[in-house]
C-alpha cells in the first residue's frame, strides 16, 4: 500500500478518535512534515529545524485544536506553512533560499545521495514555477496528502488541484 493510499485511512482513524493518540500522531505526521519542508526548500539544510518548530508550535497549542473545524493534518500543515513563511521572512536579506541548493551528503549512503540528487534536480526544475504550484507539489509528494486536504489548505477546489498537479507533473516529467 502506497503512502498516499494509506494516508486518508490513517487520518480518518486519528480524526475519529475522541482523544488523539499523540504518539501515533507524531509517528505518522513527522515524516510528512519533514518531507514537506524538503520539497519546499529543495535541500536538506534547515529542514529539521523547521519540522521541529512546527511540532513545537502545534504541541504547545494542541488543546486549542478544534476537530469540528478542520482535520488535524490540515491544522498541522497550516502551521507548517506559517512556519515556512516566518522562516523566509526572517532570512530576508540573508541567503536567498532558492540560490541555496547545496546538498549535505557527508557520509550518507549511496542511495541517499542519489535521492538528494533527485531533490536538487526537482528544485532546479520547479524554480521557475509559480509558488502555488510548488506548494501543491510539496503537499502532494512531500507530505503525501490527498487532493481534498490540499484543496482545504490552499483554498483551491479539489478538481482544480488535480488539474494543476496533472499539468505540472507532466511538465516535470518531460524535463526530468
Amino acid at each position, binding site marked *: 500500500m*502506497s*503512502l498516499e493510499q494509506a494516508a486518508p485511512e490513517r487520518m480518518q482513524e486519528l480524526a475519529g478518535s475522541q482523544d488523539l493518540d499523540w504518539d501515533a500522531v*507524531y509517528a505518522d505526521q*513527522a*515524516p510528512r512534515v*519533514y*518531507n514537506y519542508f*524538503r*520539497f519546499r526548500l529543495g535541500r536538506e539544510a534547515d529542514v*529539521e529545524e523547521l*519540522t*521541529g518548530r512546527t*511540532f*513545537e508550535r502545534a*504541541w*504547545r*497549542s*494542541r*488543546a*486549542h485544536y478544534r476537530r469540528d473545524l478542520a482535520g488535524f493534518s490540515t491544522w498541522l500543515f497550516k502551521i507548517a*506553512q506559517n512556519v515556512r*513563511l516566518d522562516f*523566509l*521572512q526572517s532570512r*530576508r536579506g540573508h541567503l*536567498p533560499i*532558492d540560490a541555496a541548493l547545496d546538498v549535505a551528503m557527508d557520509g550518507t549512503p549511496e542511495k*541517499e545521495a542519489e*535521492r538528494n540528487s*533527485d*531533490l536538487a534536480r*526537482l528544485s532546479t526544475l520547479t*524554480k*521557475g*514555477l*509559480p*509558488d*502555488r504550484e*510548488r506548494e501543491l*507539489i510539496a503537499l*502532494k*509528494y*512531500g507530505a*503525501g496528502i490527498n487532493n481534498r486536504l490540499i484543496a482545504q489548505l*490552499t*483554498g483551491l477546489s479539489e478538481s482544480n488541484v488535480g488539474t494543476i498537479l*496533472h499539468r505540472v*507533473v*507532466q511538465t*516535470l*516529467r518531460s524535463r*526530468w
Partner: protein
Amino acid sequence: MNDDFLHRIRVEPPERFMKSLKARLDRQLPPEPMAPRRSLFRVLAFGLLFGGSVFAISLLTVNGLPDFARQFAHTRHPDSNVDGRSTSSATRRAANGIPTMPANMGQHSADVRGSAGKAADSLPNTGASGPGSSIAPTATSVTGKGPTAPRPMINLMAPPTLREYMTSVAEVSGRSSGLDVSVTATDSDTETLAQLCGTGKSTANVVNLRIASVPRRITRDEYAVCTRNLGGIAEVSIGYQTIVLARSRLYGGPAVSARDLFLALAAEIPDPAHPQMLISNPNTNWDQVNAAFNNEPIEVFGPPAQSMTAIAFRNILFSTGCNSFPTMAALKQTDPAGYERVCTTLRKDGAYAEMPEEPFEAFETLQTHPNTVGVLAYGLYQYFAFYPQNKETVTTIPIGGVAPTRETITAGTYPGSRPLYLYVDQFHAYGRAPYFVASLLENVARGKISCVIPADPAQIQAIRSYGQNLPNLKL
C-alpha cells in the same frame, strides 16, 4: 499519471532527529486546557446580564447616585483613582455620558478655546470636574488636586484617517514605556496641529506628553503658531503610507492616474454632459474611463473597506482623483458631507471586490485572475515580491507614470504615497519623549505587511541618543 520519480524523492527522517524531537515535545509543559465553549443560551444569558448592568449604571450616572450611595462613595473611597491608574483614559466618560478626553485635558480645552478659537468648537465639553458631577472625585484627583501626584500620560492627537493606526501602535508603545496613552480624535490634520499648538504654556499639564500625528508636514504658519505658544516643537518622521497597484504580468498594467481610479471605482461620478450633476458610475470597462486603455472589464481587488490600507487608498489616491474635478473641489466648500460621501465611497456593484490582506491569498488572486488590478499595502507587496518567482508573475502599475520605488516614495514623486509625521509639544515634554517616540517607531517597523514604510532604522538610534529631550524643529 506516472509520478514515481516524485514519490522516490521522499525519505524517512533520520532516527536520531525523530527521537530528539519527540523528547523535546515530551519535555514541553502540558497544553493549557481549552476554555469550555459557551452554548447559545449561556451567551444570551450573559449578554442580558451585561446589558442590564450597563443600563442600570447609565441610569445612575445620568440621574445621579442615590443619597446613600453617594455618601458611601465619599466615605469609603476618598482617594479612589487618585493616581488615575484605575481610570482608562480612552473610556473615561463625563457626567452626561458623552465620551470625552481625560479629565486633565479639560484644562487643555479651556486653553484651546482661549488662544486658538478654531479648535474650540470641536472639543467636547467634559464637565468632569464641574460642580455636581457624579464622577467629581475622580476628576479632581486626576487634575492633580488629590494627595497623590498624577500619573504621567501620553496624549496623542490624530485625524480620522490615522486614528485607528496610531491607536494600535501607540498602545503597544505605551505599555512598553509604562505610560497610559490617550488618543484624541480630531476632525482634520489642521485641527490636530491647532490642538497641539493652541494650548499655550500651562504648568497644569506638565504630566502630559502631548504629540500630534499628521499625514503631512507642518506648514510655516502653523510652525510659527507652535513656536510662539509652546516655545518649540520637535518633528519626527514616522515613515510613508504607501499604496501599490499590482497586476499579473500576463496583461501588464495600464498607466493609470488618480483620476482614472476615481472614475473606475467611485459609486458616483460627475455627469460628463452636466458636470454639476452626479450620476451612478456607468463605467464597466477601462476604455470608458480613458480611451487610451484597452477594452477590458474593470475588476479591482482591494483591502476590506475599514482596513488602514483601504482608508489610506481612499485618502491618498481616490480623493485626489475626486478633487481633479473642479465641481467636486467646489462641493468641498459648499457641502462637506456630500463631498465626503462622493469622494470616499467605492462602488458596490462588483467592480471593486474585497480580499483579505494576506500575502498568499492576495497574490493567488492576482495570479489566477490576470485581468484584475490589486490594491495592496506596500509592505504586503514587498513581502510577496521577496520570492523571485512571484515577481515574475505579478508586477506593479505606475501611477501618473511613476513606479513605486523607495526612491520615488521618499522623494515624494509617487502619487500613491504620503509622509507621516509626529510633532511633540516640547514645553510639556517631561523627559520621556525620546523613549516613547523611539518605541513607537519600532512598533511601526514591526508591521511587515502594512502600508506604512518605516523611516530609516538609524533614526530610532538617533532618537534614543537624544536622552531626555528631542531637538527643536527649525524651519
